């Protein structure tokens, strides 16, 4: 039996402040996406199709939703003698060190015993937060071909947005495939000379990673982008960039998250989940038990994704509906993303709205600008809300999760926050 040579570690701990109420109760990687799946399903499915079957997930923020989602790992075929997904939460060691991960590099450092136990020949570290399709095996092959200490997955970005990313300058050693990283800036404040952004997909030579993580412990910052990559550059290590040419959904803001949902729609969608081989855990939230979507007499659905368990009596346009969403008669839902088990009451109007799970929206509720007009901002509804009949919620407003009936008001102003 061939023992796997690659150990993959997924950084899935982060809560993204800009995603606001969507990450109050779950890490970014467990945020629902695509009408039935979660963000982390993208890297997990990529791993599956790349033949990488030994995986650790580093998570410390609100891990339950994630633990639930991963289950046994069977959904991604990750069970077997040499296959598996381990979730590595923070722990308290006997040195009385702070038990929380102090950063992504610290998280891996604290689990080095786990890593070394697997005796990997190469270590693939990736973020669990991004939407993309990538053959990691091809990248690992490149890493070996270049005898690299570190190979970074990179994508071309607009220089104006470079300040949000780790930016690498790459020589044209291998043209479209990649090249040696000649300089690296983490989130450069002034426009850099280069425009290759790090995807947070990194292949390390184990001994180089171990040495860098050990050295990094002397520092006060423990991040791969900010600390580890610059450290390897300063050591003159062989750092290579592997160029990714496809779609990359970097969904750090609500607007970006909404946009990547819209990228699922249209005749030739930028994100084609079946073609990408996306898999999720159908056990999670019991979505396997939903019956096919029922479209009633007056139901209208245009340019939208609708999963099993939905019942549509109203109108749905340019939207993504997760399992168990009900849209009642006369309601119009446009440009919206409705998570699991929302119920949209009769004659409601929703335009550019994201609703988290389990909300019951009463009758004649208006959320966002008038339907048929172009909405500018996303309106966000947190989970488990019961919105009274006739409520008006202005464009760009945010409604916090779990509001009590007394907390509701007739009108939430545009851009307002109800909590």
């Amino acid at each position: 039996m061939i023992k796997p040579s690659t150990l993959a570690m997924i950084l899935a701990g982060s809560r993204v402040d800009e995603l606001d109420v969507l990450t109050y109760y779950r890490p970014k990687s467990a945020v629902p996406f695509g009408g039935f799946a979660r963000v982390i399903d993208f890297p997990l499915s990529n791993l599956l199709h790349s033949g990488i079957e030994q995986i650790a997930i580093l998570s410390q923020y609100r891990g339950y939703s994630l633990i639930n989602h991963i289950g046994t790992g069977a959904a991604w075929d990750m069970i077997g003698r040499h296959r598996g997904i381990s979730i590595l939460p923070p722990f308290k060691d006997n040195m009385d060190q702070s038990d929380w991960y102090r950063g992504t590099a610290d998280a891996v450092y604290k689990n080095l015993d786990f890593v070394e136990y697997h005796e990997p020949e190469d270590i693939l570290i990736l973020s669990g937060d991004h939407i993309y399709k990538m053959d990691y095996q091809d990248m690992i092959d490149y890493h070996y071909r270049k005898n690299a200490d570190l190979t970074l997955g990179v994508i071309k970005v607009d220089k104006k947005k470079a300040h949000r990313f780790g930016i690498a300058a790459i020589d044209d050693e291998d043209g479209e495939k990649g090249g040696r990283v000649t300089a690296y800036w983490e989130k450069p404040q002034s426009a850099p000379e280069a425009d290759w952004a790090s995807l947070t997909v990194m292949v390390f030579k184990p001994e180089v990673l171990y040495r860098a993580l050990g050295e990094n412990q002397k520092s006060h910052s423990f991040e791969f982008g900010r600390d580890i990559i610059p450290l390897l550059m300063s050591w003159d290590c062989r750092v290579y960039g592997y160029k990714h040419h496809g779609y990359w959904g970097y969904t750090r803001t609500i607007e970006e998250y909404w946009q990547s949902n819209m990228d699922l729609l249209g005749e030739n969608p930028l994100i084609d989940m079946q073609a990408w081989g996306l898999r999720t855990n159908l056990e999670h939230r019991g979505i396997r038990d939903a019956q096919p979507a029922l479209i009633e007499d007056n139901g209208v659905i245009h340019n939208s994704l609708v999963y099993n368990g939905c019942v549509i009596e109203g109108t749905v346009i340019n939207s993504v509906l997760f399992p168990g969403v009900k849209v009642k008669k006369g309601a119009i839902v446009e440009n919206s993303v409705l998570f699991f088990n929302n119920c949209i009451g009769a004659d409601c109007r929703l335009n550019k709205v994201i609703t988290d799970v389990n909300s019951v929206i009463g009758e004649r509720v208006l959320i966002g600008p008038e339907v048929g007009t172009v909405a500018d901002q996303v309106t966000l509804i947190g989970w488990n809300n019961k919105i009274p009949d006739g409520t008006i919620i202005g464009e760009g407003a945010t409604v916090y999760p779990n509001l009590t009936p007394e907390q509701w008001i007739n009108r939430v102003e545009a851009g307002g926050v109800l909590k």
Partner: protein
Amino acid sequence: MDKSGRGRGSVEMRVKKEALVLLLAGGVGSRLNILVQNRAKPAVPFGGLYRIIDFSLSNVMNSGLTKVGVLTQYKPMSLMRHLGMGEAWDFTGRSRGVKILPPHTGFKDSDWYKGTADAVRQNIDFLERNPADEVVILSGDHIYYMDFHAMLEYHRYKKADVTVGMMVVPMSEIHQFGAGIINHENRIVDWEEKPEKPRTNLASMGIYIFDRQYLLDTLSRDREENDFGMHILPRAIANDNVFAYPFYGYWRDVGTIQAYWEANMDIIRKNSGISPELWGIRTNMETSGLPFDRSPAYFGGHASVSCSMISAGCSIRGTVQNSVLAPGVVVAEGAIVRDSILFADCIVEKNSVVDLTICDKRVRIQAEAVVGAGNNHEIANRQQPKHLYTGITLIGKEAVVPPGVSIGRNCIINCKTKEEAYPGKEIEDGETL
């Protein structure tokens, strides 16, 4: 704990002795015609996502029973694949399980099951290996929701040797069933198997609870008694305690094409009484071996869908009315699907029409073709007039309907029919290809 309170020793008391379930899934279901060409009747897809046997299996699961033997015989491959390890119905674990019981060679060569009772008799070792006070015997052929736990309680309360699940059916249909005459306490006092001149409209649903020891004794007594309805029950009624357990819900034997079509349509009809999701019906979605999970159904910019069930993985750009679509069905722009049932991964190409038709898996209706042409529903299928006579046309698994071809009513296009097999542009009402 022993729910019946009849535990015999302290160690045995700790063993959960719940009833054992035997699911008879050997039915050929030949009236379902080409839908059962490659699979047993219980494995026939139903309601978009399900197979017929999912209803019985889920009822077993939802009744809290966890030890199941499935007796197979006829073309069991698709059924076995579907059952897998039973995890879809929560049957995996140390003391839980679903076991496939195929016919096996006995003392004589190749002993095929000669009837329902014979099938159980041939698996008597399975009964002996699994201690239980009662044995629940079910058919895997029916669409219904039923709580067997309540029926077990009833069986125990009545101190019955046998309890038979029974329901009232129209007098005109009773000749297809076993019919029971009951007294005021629901004791069955007389029995008629498929009566020509019925005296009652109380029909057996093919659901029996036997006291295990009684069943073992009965089966070993007379080895010529091969059928529950024909032999075992009449004898038991004459000599022992047999009770009817009345059932009042939705129950269909989808043994004919017409009944199968009606029951599928019931899911989209309001208030028909059938609701797989509310009933907690589970299925095994992983059997197709796809490398991906089905994405949500995509509805294109000009899609028009009404009164229909659409499963994940479908892609709808045309018109769908009154139809049930399994996962992965593609309906192209300009195409119309009406009053039809499409199994997984059928493709309905541009401007074609599919009307009152059942398409098995991976059927391809090419551009401008019409399936279910004309309005003459009266000409029954010439080869199988008893199977197809109400206007429904059947297209077999992986068959192709070439561009521009028109197929009439009550037609049968066999599995894997290729373009070359078509004699011309028109297949008349009642023809078979």
